[in-house]
C-alpha cells in the first residue's frame, strides 16, 4: 500500500438545487478553502491538485479542469482530472492518496464538484445515438430493471425501498450541508410519490444538486491536527456488456470490497466497520450493496435494512450524513462519501456523528454499476 496517508482537512459547500451566486470556479474554491482552513493550511502548502468531475455534458464545459487551475491555486503545480462516471469522487480521493502513498507529494488537494443546475443530467445521460432504440431515460431508467431483479431474487417486500428513503432523509436533518431537508418525512409520504421508473418512486431517488467537496491529504510527516488514516484503497471496473455479468451484484464491486478489506484487515465488515458511507442514489441500492459489500449474505441485505441495523442508532450505520439520497452533486457525491467517512473517524461529524467511530468505509460506484472505488479510514495509524 506504500507510505501512510492521512486526511487532514475536509471542506464542503452546502448542497442545494441552484447555487446562483457562484461560478463553477467559485464553487470549487469555496470547498477547497474550507478544507484548507480545516487543515490550517493555505494553497501555498499544497503540492498537487486532483480534480474529479462526472461527464462534461452535465455543464457543457469541456475539460473544466483547465479553467479551474486558478481557482484552486494550482498554477505551477501538477494538476490532473479524474473521470470514472458516478464513482469519480471516490476515484479522485484514491488518485490523490496514491500520490502520497507513492511518496511523490507531501500534501495533495482533492476536489470534486457538479453544478447540475446548469443543465439536466437525465438529458446528458440519454444522448440517444442513431441506429439504436431510445429506451433508457436517465440513470433511473437504467437501474430500475436491476432493482426489480434484486426484488425478485431476494424476495424482498416492496416497502424496503421506502425505509431507506426515510432513514437517509432523517439523517440528512442532522447534517448542515445536506440538500434535502424534509421534516416529517415518513413511509406514507414516500409511498404517495409517483413511480418514475417503476419500481423506483420519486422520493426513492436522489436529488439534483449543486455542490463541491474537497479534502487535504497528507503524508505521515506532514499530518497535523486530528487526521483520519487511510487503511486501504481499491478500485475495480468491468465491462457493462458481458455475458453472465451479474448486474444486481457486480463482480467488480465484490472484488473491490475484498481488496480493500484485505488491506485494512477486515474479515467481518458488519462488525469491524463502525460506519459506512455508501453510494446509494436509489433507495434499493442499500440492501443491494449490503450484500455486494459483504455486510449481509446474498438475499439477506433487505432484512438488515428492515431490522433498523443501518439506522444512525443501529449496529452498522449506513449513510449517517443522509447519503446520495439527500445530496447529489454527481461528480462530488463519491468524494463526499469518502470525506464523511474521514469526518466520522476524526470525530468531527457533528450531529450525525456515530459515537466512538474508529473505522469507516467510503464507497462509490458509477456507470452501469461497472466502476467501483472504496477506502477504509481509521482513527489509528495503520
Amino acid at each position, binding site marked *: 500500500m506504500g507510505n501512510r496517508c492521512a486526511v487532514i482537512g475536509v471542506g464542503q459547500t452546502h448542497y442545494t438545487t441552484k447555487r*446562483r*451566486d457562484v461560478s463553477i470556479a467559485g464553487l470549487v474554491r469555496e470547498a477547497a478553502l474550507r478544507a484548507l482552513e480545516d487543515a490550517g493550511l493555505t494553497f501555498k502548502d499544497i503540492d498537487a491538485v486532483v480534480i474529479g468531475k462526472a461527464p462534461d455534458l452535465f455543464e*457543457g464545459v469541456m475539460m473544466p479542469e483547465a479553467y479551474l487551475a486558478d481557482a484552486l491555486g494550482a498554477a505551477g503545480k501538477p494538476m490532473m482530472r479524474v473521470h470514472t462516471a458516478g464513482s469519480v469522487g471516490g476515484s479522485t480521493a484514491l488518485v490523490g492518496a496514491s500520490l502520497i502513498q507513492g511518496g511523490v507529494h507531501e500534501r495533495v488537494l482533492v476536489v470534486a464538484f457538479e453544478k447540475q443546475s446548469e443543465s439536466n443530467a*437525465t438529458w446528458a445521460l*440519454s444522448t*440517444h*445515438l*442513431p*441506429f*439504436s*432504440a*431510445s*429506451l*433508457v*431515460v*436517465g440513470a*433511473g*431508467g437504467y437501474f*430500475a*430493471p*436491476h432493482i*426489480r*431483479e434484486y426484488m*425478485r431474487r431476494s424476495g424482498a417486500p416492496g416497502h424496503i425501498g421506502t425505509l431507506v428513503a426515510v432513514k437517509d432523509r432523517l439523517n440528512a436533518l442532522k447534517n448542515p450541508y445536506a440538500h434535502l431537508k424534509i421534516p416529517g418525512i415518513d413511509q406514507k409520504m414516500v409511498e404517495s410519490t*409517483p*413511480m*418514475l*421508473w*417503476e*419500481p*423506483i418512486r420519486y422520493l426513492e431517488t436522489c436529488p439534483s444538486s449543486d455542490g463541491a467537496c474537497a479534502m487535504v491529504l497528507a503524508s505521515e510527516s506532514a499530518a497535523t491536527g486530528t487526521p483520519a488514516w487511510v487503511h486501504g484503497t481499491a478500485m475495480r471496473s468491468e*465491462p457493462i*456488456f*458481458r*455475458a*453472465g*455479468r451479474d448486474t444486481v451484484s457486480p463482480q467488480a464491486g465484490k472484488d473491490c470490497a475484498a481488496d480493500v478489506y484485505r488491506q485494512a484487515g477486515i474479515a467481518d465488515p458488519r462488525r469491524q466497520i463502525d460506519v459506512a458511507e455508501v453510494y446509494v442514489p436509489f433507495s434499493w441500492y442499500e440492501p443491494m450493496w449490503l450484500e455486494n459489500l459483504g455486510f449481509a449474505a446474498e438475499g439477506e441485505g433487505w432484512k438488515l435494512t428492515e431490522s433498523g441495523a443501518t439506522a444512525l442508532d443501529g449496529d452498522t450505520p449506513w449513510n449517517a450524513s443522509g447519503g446520495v439520497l439527500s445530496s447529489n452533486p454527481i461528480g462530488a457525491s463519491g468524494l463526499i462519501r469518502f470525506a464523511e467517512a474521514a469526518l466520522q473517524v476524526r470525530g468531527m461529524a457533528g450531529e450525525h456523528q456515530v459515537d466512538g467511530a474508529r473505522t469507516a468505509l467510503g464507497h462509490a460506484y458509477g456507470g452501469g454499476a461497472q466502476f467501483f472505488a472504496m477506502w477504509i479510514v481509521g482513527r489509528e495509524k495503520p
Partner: protein
Amino acid sequence: MPSDPLVAQHVLEFPGGYTRTTGPVIGRFLSELRARRIVGVRTAEGRVHVPPLEYDPATGEPVTGEYVEVGPAGTITTWAWVAEPLDAHPLDQPFAWALIRLDGADSDLLHAVAAENPKALAAGARVWPVWRDRPTGHITDISHFAPEVTKIVSEVRAEYRLQVGGALRVFLEGVERGVFLGSRCEQCEKVYVPLRLACPECGNTLPETLELPDTGTITTFAINNLPDPRAPEVPFVSAYILLDGADIPMIALIGDVPAHEVRQGMRVKAVWVPESERTATMANIRWFAPTGEPDVELT
C-alpha cells in the same frame, strides 16, 4: 356608441413642447447622462444627491459645485409592480417603478426596472442601467434598469456524421432482412447479440456468426413514466430480453400488453414492421410482444 352632441374631445398641447431651462446643476446632470455617466451633487453637509438638487432640502443652502460620479449600478430600496403598462410608460412589458440607491449616492433615483416577473425583484436587489441607443441629455437616456447579470445561456451544439462500421453494420444488415445476428466466442462459448467482433470476457475475436431466433424471455424490465421527447410515449416498458440461444440480454420495448401485465420470465417475440418499411435500424422492430407460452422460471 350613440353620439351625444354635448360631449367633445379636446387636446391641450403647447406646440413643439415647453422648454425647460435646466440651470447649471440639472444641466450638468443631463450632460453627464448624455455622455453615459450618472453624477450626483454634494451638499455642504457632504451628502450626495442623485438626481442632483440645486438647493439642499435640509438646510436651504445651495449645493456645492462638486459632482460625484455614482453607480452605474444600484440597489432597489422599494418598488411597485406595473402589471399593465400605459402608453406613456417607458416599457411596453410589465415592469416595476423603483427607488434605486445608486452606489455612492445618499438619495434614491426613481426609474423603471425591467424584470420577468415581480418575484425577480426584492428590496436589496442589484440593478444596472440599460442605456438608450442615442442619448440626448434626458432622464430617458437610461431606457430602464435591469437586474444584475447572474447567468448567461451558452448554446453548445455539435453535429456529427456517424458511420456504422464493423460488427454493427453486419448486425443492422441482418435486422433489415428481419433476422438477429450474433457471434459465439470459441473460448468461453458465450453467444453475443448484437454481433460483436471481440469477446468482452476474454478479448478473443469472435469469428463465428450465427442467426438467432426472434423469440426470447424477459429477464427484467422497467415501467417508464418519465416522459422524454426522444423516447416512446409513457408509460412504456423497456425490457431485457434474452433471445433463445443468446447469453446476454438485449434491451427492447414491450408492446401489445398493458404495462402492469408484463412479467419477468414472460415469453416474447419480435414484432417487425412490414417488409416494405424496413430499414437497417432498430426501428425495424416495433417491439416485442407476448407469445402466450408459459412463463420461463428464472434462476
